[in-house]
């Protein structure tokens, strides 16, 4: 045992030692100190103003200003996205600007941008109106001209409407010969011309017809160009119309209906020369407006580009400032109102770094008073901090997903790094699939830098984050695949000759009695002769079930052993004597014995029935074993093991609570006065850190807790061991799926001579392998290996009631946002 004491502390095994610190910062250097600490990222601040609302805190104005600035920055980003600009050149290096200057610049830019936008809107609207006017002039002018060219005067009410086509103007003008010429010459016969959306034209016409009781004549023509509708911001088809009517009442009605349908009315002169003149004017103004619009857009884009080059830097700066002010809000003013007091956790190894940083902050802010940094005791448990690199980070995340380790308890991820991919591989074992996984993992690792800077969907992010897990899973899968002798379910004879041959040269009874083992065992893995034989499944099932039990017993023993090391570290001999020892005895006298029997049965080739042995060990331990005898003196041994297991159960249940109760009574029997003394503490010195520990011992609670723990262990021993049989189940499923796809898809398709059928078979095989075996089975085996770790392994020793160390760090801000 001294050997373990002399070993250095292992890297990831227990949390870094943390210490509780207090900072007293003079006001002038506060902002700088906090931002330097943010750069360092090794101090977790405690919120001393927890009970205050956000509006009661000291620096609420600054936080509001930062919020305003980030709103403006988001507005710029929005505008840039809408304009479709991309960052082209590298951002120009500019001297660092102050926060106030940035604020002023941002508001200037914002007002400029808003002004440009409104101007652009107005211009665009005017442009649209002119465009519509031009179209109305063109089409309606056509109607009026043809109407005037005929001198037949007839006063007739037209009851049918005419549908104009671009190419059939002549036909309608023949019909219009009935109409009166020069409609405005006649008293009362006037017209209204305008433009309306094509989708509404039918209803519009019907409405007009009903409103004027048929006393109107309606002409329409589709406009040739598309107009951008300002409301919908998309191009719609419009139709030009002309309504001829008589009477003032009709006019008001028609105008109201035009309004309701959103039709824009434009006055068209009847005189053709005036028309032509106005058309020319409109065209010239249109081209002017186009030029102005273009210039406006160009100007705006230039402004946006100049903003874009600085946008990232500004965003980062504003985010940092907001974080600094949020942290400053966590600090308290001291009595003199000249200093800020902060408390927090930091790792012990970082103490010097932090002191260095604080010294630099004092110098940089030209403060007369230094920052005080000293270590305090804390009542609550420290946060847990593991220093991980990019390789161990993913495994630590997997363990943390179950629960963050208690401060300084053993970290299961030390072993999980290897056992997790290994148990995955036991369920996935196929070296062909393993090679595919390996390729995928290597691609992810090769592009890790590029993928790390991009923004990915949540699934890809998981895949990239777990690339080293996948790498290990692939390597172990290749190893297990070689052992199971499966390459896309095809066995290979790589490691020498098979150990089986026919009993006689004619192989007459190979299909009835089977082959015979004539040589030494196949040196590495499953003998290739088993594949395709009728007794393959019984053999493999027996092998894999026993293998699962052996792995289960091994991993659970490791878990119980880790609980011993935990108890040793926390110097709790109570836990060692009354929890570890009985647990070890109970578990190994039953399931360790089973594992031993399995190994002996394999070594001796005995025909003993292990189910029978185990069950009758409990039911009738004194019976003679007969054929099932595997060891010498097996019967007395089994009786002894059974007795040990039975003793172990109350051993892990009763002594610990009784002894705890005794210790508690002893400690507080002569110390009642001492308790009174400690209650009169000076609470003014540190108002925010509680120092009193309320000692309470509830015997029934402790006893029930211990009982639950003991029952969980005893019953869990059986159920957890059986749970490891999922290793068998999943590897069987994988192997069977693989066989089916190979034999029933690929071989079947290859049997035909047709190249198309062969290609189709290959394609189906590839898709089925990729989606079902590589994706679904990977996820399935991933999940089950995870469950085995989280439940069966970790509930032997892992309390997981700690909390994670979250230092104030600018680099973690970049991950949080967006």
């Amino acid at each position, binding site marked *: 045992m001294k050997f373990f004491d002399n*070993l*250095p*502390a*292992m*890297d*990831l*095994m227990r949390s870094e030692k943390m210490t509780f610190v207090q900072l007293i910062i003079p006001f002038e250097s506060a902002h700088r100190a906090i931002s330097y600490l943010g750069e360092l990222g090794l101090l977790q601040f405690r919120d001393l103003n927890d009970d205050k609302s956000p509006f009661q805190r000291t620096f609420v104005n600054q936080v509001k200003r930062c919020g305003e600035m980030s709103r403006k920055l988001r507005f710029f980003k929005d505008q840039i996205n809408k304009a479709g600009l991309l960052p082209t050149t590298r951002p120009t290096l500019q001297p660092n600007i102050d926060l106030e200057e940035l604020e002023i610049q941002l508001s200037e830019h914002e007002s400029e941008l808003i002004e440009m936008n409104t101007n652009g809107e107005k211009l665009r609207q005017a442009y649209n109106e002119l465009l519509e006017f031009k179209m109305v002039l063109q089409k309606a002018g056509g109607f009026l001209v043809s109407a005037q060219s005929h001198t037949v005067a007839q006063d007739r009410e037209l009851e049918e409407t005419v549908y104009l086509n671009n190419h059939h103007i002549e036909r309608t003008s023949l019909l219009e010969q009935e109409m009166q010429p020069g409609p405005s010459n006649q008293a009362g016969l006037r017209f209204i011309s305008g433009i309306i959306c094509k989708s509404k034209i039918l209803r519009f016409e019907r409405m007009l017809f009903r409103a004027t009781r048929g006393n109107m004549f309606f002409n329409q023509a589709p406009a040739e160009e598309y107009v951008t509708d300002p409301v919908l911001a998309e191009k719609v088809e419009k139709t030009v119309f002309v309504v001829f009517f008589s009477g003032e009442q009709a006019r008001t009605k028609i105008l109201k209906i035009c309004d309701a349908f959103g039709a824009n009315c434009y006055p068209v002169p009847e005189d053709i020369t005036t028309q032509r003149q106005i058309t020319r004017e409109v065209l010239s103004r249109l081209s002017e407006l186009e030029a102005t619009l273009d210039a406006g857009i160009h100007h705006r884009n230039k402004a946006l580009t100049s903003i874009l080059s600085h946008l990232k830097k500004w965003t980062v700066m504003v985010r940092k400032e907001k974080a600094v002010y949020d942290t400053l809000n966590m600090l308290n003013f001291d009595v003199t109102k000249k200093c800020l007091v902060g408390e927090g956790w930091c790792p012990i190894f970082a103490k010097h770094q932090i002191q260095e940083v604080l010294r630099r902050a004092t110098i940089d802010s030209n403060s007369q008073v230094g920052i005080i940094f000293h270590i305090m005791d804390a009542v609550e448990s420290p946060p847990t901090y593991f220093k991980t690199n990019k390789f161990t980070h993913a495994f630590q995340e997997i363990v943390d997903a179950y629960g963050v380790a208690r401060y300084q308890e053993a970290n299961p991820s*030390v*072993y999980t*790094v*290897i*056992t997790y991919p*290994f148990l995955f591989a*036991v369920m996935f074992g196929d070296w062909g699939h393993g090679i595919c996984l390996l390729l995928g993992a290597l691609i992810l690792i090769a592009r890790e830098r590029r993928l790390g800077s991009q923004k990915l969907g949540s699934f890809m992010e998981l895949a990239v984050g777990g690339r080293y897990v996948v790498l290990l899973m692939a390597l172990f899968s290749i*190893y*297990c695949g070689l*052992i*199971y002798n499966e390459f896309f379910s095809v066995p290979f004879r790589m490691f020498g000759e098979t*150990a*089986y041959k026919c009993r006689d040269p004619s*192989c007459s009874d*190979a*299909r*009835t*009695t*089977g*082959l*015979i*083992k004539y040589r*030494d*065992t*196949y*040196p*590495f*893995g*499953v*003998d290739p*002769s*088993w594949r*395709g*034989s*009728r*007794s*393959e499944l*019984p*053999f493999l099932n*027996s*092998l894999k079930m*026993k*293998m699962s039990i*052996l*792995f289960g017993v*091994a991993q659970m023993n490791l878990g119980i052993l880790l609980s011993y090391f935990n108890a040793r570290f926390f110097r709790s001999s109570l836990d060692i004597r009354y929890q570890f020892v009985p647990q070890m005895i109970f578990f190994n006298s039953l399931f360790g014995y089973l594992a031993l029997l399995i*190994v002996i049965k*394999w*070594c*001796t*080739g005995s*025909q003993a029935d292990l189910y029978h042995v185990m069950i009758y060990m409990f039911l009738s331990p004194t019976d003679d074993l007969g054929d099932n005898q595997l060891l010498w003196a097996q019967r007395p041994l089994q009786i002894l093991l059974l007795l040990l297991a039975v003793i172990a159960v109350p051993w892990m249940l009763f002594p610990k609570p009784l002894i705890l109760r005794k210790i508690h009574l002893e400690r507080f029997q002569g110390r009642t006065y001492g308790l009174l003394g400690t209650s009169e503490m000076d609470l003014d010195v540190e108002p925010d850190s509680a120092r009193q520990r309320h000692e309470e011992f509830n015997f029934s609670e402790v006893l029930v807790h211990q009982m639950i723990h003991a029952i969980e262990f005893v019953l869990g021993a059986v159920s957890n061991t059986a749970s490891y049989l999922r290793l068998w189940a999943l590897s069987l499923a994988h192997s069977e799926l693989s066989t089916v796809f190979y034999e029933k898809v690929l071989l079947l398709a290859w049997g035909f001579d047709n190249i198309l059928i062969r290609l189709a078979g290959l394609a189906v095989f590839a898709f089925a392998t990729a989606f079902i075996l590589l994706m679904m089975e990977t996820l399935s085996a991933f999940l089950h290996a995870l469950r085995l770790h989280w439940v069966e392994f970790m509930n032997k020793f892992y309390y997981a009631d700690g909390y994670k160390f979250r230092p104030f760090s600018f680099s973690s801000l970049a991950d949080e946002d967006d």
Partner: protein
Amino acid sequence: MGFLITSLIFIVAGVIGALLARICCNRGPSGNLFHLTLVITTTVCCWMMWAIVYLAQMNPLIVPILSEG
């Protein structure tokens, strides 16, 4: 016989792995202990897997019975 020899091969491979880890990534005593733990765990897992499959085939109770065709 083959069992013992191959187990020795596994042990030798583990030792070589540990030496390689020490040569390639020497990160101080705590880091080295962590790498050693990883190498030992890997060796034990791989050896167990191989040993189980080997032992199961040493004295088989059933033999392959070829299927029709």
